[in-house]
Structures are given as structure tokens and as C-alpha cells.
């Protein structure tokens, strides 16, 4: 499977990865049309400051033993055995937030865009490379096969 590797010392805190994620998960997929201040459209990734103030990009790592999957009482979250991607099925999701309660890295969230369901990184299912990785101008995030 593939994972996103993070070199936080290269992160400029530009949040291009967040913007790319937001754009990718709208119907038009356009960075020009996406409303970046729409509170209901949250990115699945985030850039946050570490203890010394260094911006640090954080992504769902599609865990080997995902706590979100263990918590999901609806069977809406599953780990795809072929790709390793932890997938969320919005139709099955009951919006109980047990996954948000359980992800130790804060990578499950609520999505106003999809109403009362959870949302997470889908590894940009319809693209070869996650759009955050393609959008990072500094090389702070890279894709590696493990």
C-alpha cells in the first residue's frame, strides 16, 4: 500500500494541501470555485503547529489497525485489503461520531457538506496521486509505497 510521508521541516504552512483537499471534494473540483471560508467544507487533512510553532501537515495514515473501523457500529468504515485505504461509505454512515471519538490522530470529522455523516481522507479515490501530495510546492509531503 501507499502512505503519505511527511517532512515537516519542509512545510511552509501554505495550506495548499488543505485547499486542494477541499476543492477535490466538491462537485466542480475547482480551486478557483471552491469557497475556502465555507465552514461546512472542511479538508480531510490539516496543517497544525507543533510545540515549537513549526507548521506540521497531518493526514489520515490509513492505519494497519484502524481505530475508526473498530469503532464503526454501522459497518460504514472498512479497510480495503487490496489498496490498504480505509474507506468510508456515506450511505451506511449513521452519524454517531464513534469514529471521531476513536481516531487517535483527529482525522475523522463531521462534514456539513454531506449533512449528518462523518468524513475522512479517501486517498483521492479517483486520482492516481492524492491531490494534497500533487499540490505541495515544497516537497514536504510525498507518497511512498511500503
Amino acid at each position: 500500500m501507499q502512505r503519505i510521508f511527511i517532512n515537516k521541516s519542509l512545510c511552509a504552512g501554505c495550506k495548499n494541501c488543505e485547499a486542494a483537499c477541499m476543492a477535490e471534494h466538491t462537485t466542480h473540483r475547482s480551486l478557483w470555485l471552491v469557497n475556502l471560508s465555507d465552514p461546512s467544507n472542511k479538508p480531510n487533512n490539516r496543517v497544525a503547529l507543533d510545540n515549537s510553532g513549526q507548521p506540521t501537515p497531518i493526514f489520515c495514515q490509513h492505519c494497519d489497525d484502524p481505530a475508526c473501523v473498530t469503532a464503526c457500529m454501522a459497518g460504514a468504515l472498512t479497510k480495503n485489503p487490496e489498496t490498504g485505504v480505509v474507506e468510508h461509505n456515506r450511505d451506511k454512515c449513521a452519524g454517531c461520531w464513534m469514529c471521531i471519538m476513536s481516531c487517535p490522530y483527529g482525522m475523522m470529522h463531521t462534514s456539513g457538506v454531506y449533512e449528518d455523516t462523518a468524513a475522512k481522507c479517501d486517498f483521492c479515490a479517483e486520482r492516481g496521486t492524492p491531490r494534497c501530495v500533487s499540490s505541495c510546492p515544497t516537497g514536504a509531503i510525498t507518497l511512498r509505497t511500503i
Partner: protein
Amino acid sequence: MQYVIIGSSAAGISAVSAIRELDPKNSIIMISKDKQIYSRCQLPEIITGERTLKESCFIPANFFEKYRVKWIDDTGVTHINTDAHVVETNNGQKITFDRLLIATGASSFFPPIDNLQKGRQICGLRNIDDALQIVDYAHDMKKAVIIGAGLVGVEAALALNDLGLKVTLVENASHILPLQLDQTAAGNYERLLNEHQINIYTNEIVTKIHLDEKQNVTHVELKSGVILPADLIIVATGITPNIQFLDHVPIKINRGIIVNEKQETSIPNIYAAGDVCASTESFTAKITPTPIWPLAIEQGRIAGTNMAGGNKQRTINFAYKNSMNLFGLSTISYGFTEAPNENYTTHIQFERGSYKKLIIKDGILFGAIFQGDISGAGIYGKLIAEKISINSLPPERLFSISYANFFNQQENGLYRY
């Protein structure tokens, strides 16, 4: 080699996939009273019709074929002969096992209230039959009283309110959801319930159910003397483990089947997992039932792995976590809801309509409530479950701790704390 699993819910099902990861060939027999696989947590949605029974199934349709499980449904286990390694059922079957998993979960607990066992329109809410019975009654009934305002009681109240019944909640504690929330967070839900015409009596105890001559429910009497007209009663005062069939089995039980870190019971080759067992809970360090879905899944998986010859131990067995989404107001809470004594400090934030509270002692988080904005809550859950120090963090970030504060990516790309 034959595996037998009693119970086809969270714990039993997750044991199956764990067994099959290590043992693709030996036979697995699953026995359950349940006739369908469904998520009990979604019974309220089934009552309101938001979800069908089929939609609440939490496993893929081909699960039993894929994992080659013989499922004996609609069958209750009545006895286990531990010498002969035989499970006996209510329809006369005798099934031998080499490794057995007891994952029979729990049932609604009916407290000793006058006439509670006798009255007709009185239901718990635990199994699909309860939900269907409630739906059936709800067609003709107008006034429901719910005894107990924990999560199940409150969810039942919302569901019946949705179906147009006049609902009253009666709770022993001073506020609703007493195990999950503090007064402030619960108060926000109490207001929403009241706005939806759901009545709440807190600090109250149901002392008696009044019945007519045909044992139909007519009224509910409270300790204060209040008499509430009712034609339907839901009992949501907690659960009791399904261990009746173990009455004559020499297995160690104390508020649940006692298990060790490997989910082994006191009898070799017999395991237990989920709501039926009692294990060392990590927040309290006490042996208690841990009746939440994620732990039933986790314990089932550990049992399954060990049954199939693996060696897996429970590490974190943290049961003090709750999430809810009621009337569009979301809350996640962990650990204590109030500081137990003056050695703990309480930090509170009201911001943009959200309420957040943290309880800390010596740089360790012991409790958290997030109401409204719940994003990133899971990090606090991890810190509380594993008692990870936050001493080195900038204090002004107390309410915005993220994984960036602990960032540590391994060579395989996985994160660690």
C-alpha cells in the same frame, strides 16, 4: 478442530474474521438467538423508520460464505458441558467444540418496580424484537414514559417523539445522561428535549406501574407522588449480562464472565468477549463490564486470534468514552465529567456556540467534554486513555491540541505518540 461462537453480534462477528486470518480451514459454527445480523446501536433509527433492519446490517452480505461459517440462527444456548466440550441448545442440539467463544452480550435490566414484570406494554430496547414491538405499540399509543435517561433512554425518547407520542423521561440522577455528561452539557440537551415537548423528571424514581384489570399499563407513579398517565413504558435503566445459561457451569462470574488479558475465561479453551464479560478496564483499573461497541469488536478480535493459536493481549481497554448526535447537537466525552476532588483542575471554554471542558491532574488529562464542535476530539481520547502527559505543550493550546504536538512518524509511515 472446531470453533463454536455463541452470539452473532459485534464480538462474535469480529472473532470470526480474526480466526480466519490465522486459520483458513477448520470449521466455525456460530449459534445465536438473533435471526439477522444488525447493529443494536441503530435500533432507534429502525423504530423511526429512518433505517430498515437490512440497512442496519454491519457486515457485507457475503460474510458467512466468505469466512465459511455455519450459522445456526434463532437458537438459544441453554447449557455448556465443560467436561464433554458440548454446547446444548433449546431445540435439543448438542454441538461439540474444541474452542468456544461466549459472546452473548447483555439484555435490558428491569429494576424491581411494582408491576414492572406484570404489565403488558412494557419494553426494553436491546433486540430487534423490542424495536418491532415498540413500533407495533406506537401505532395505537399516545403517551410513553421512559424509565432512565441514559443514552438508550434518550434515544428512545427521540424516536417515540418522532412517531408522534407524548414522551416523558424519568431519571434518578440530577440531570439526564448522568454517566456521559456534566450538568451544563446535559442541560443543553434538556432544553432541546423540552423544546420538542418531551417532559423530563430528574431526581425522580418510578415506584409503581398502575395496570388495569387486563394488565394494560395505565399510569406510572413516581416517588414524589406524581402520577403520569402512560400507555407504553420503555425500561432503559441499564443492562445485565446474558449469563443465565451458565447457572450450572463452573465458570468464574462477577457482573460478567471474568476474562484475562487474552479474553480467556476461568475454563481452558473457553473465551468470552463483549458485553457479556468483565475485564480490567484501563481508566479505573477495575474489573468491570465494558459494554461499548468498539470494545466488543476489539475483545472479539483478541479472543478470535488467541482461539486460533495466536498470542494477543488486550492493552488499552478504555470504556469511558461516549459520542452522541441528538437533535443535531453533537457531543463526545471521555473519562470524568466532573473533577473528583480538588487535586484536579477544570478548564472550560465557551466559543462559537460550543462547550468544551477538560479535567487535568499533574499534566495528565482525566476528563473531556466536547459539545458542538467535536473536531479533533479523538486526540484527547487517546491522551486520556493512555494517560499521556501534556506538560510539555504550550498551555495556551490546551483546547487546540492536535497530533502536530506529538508528531512522530515511523519508517512504515505509521504515527506514534
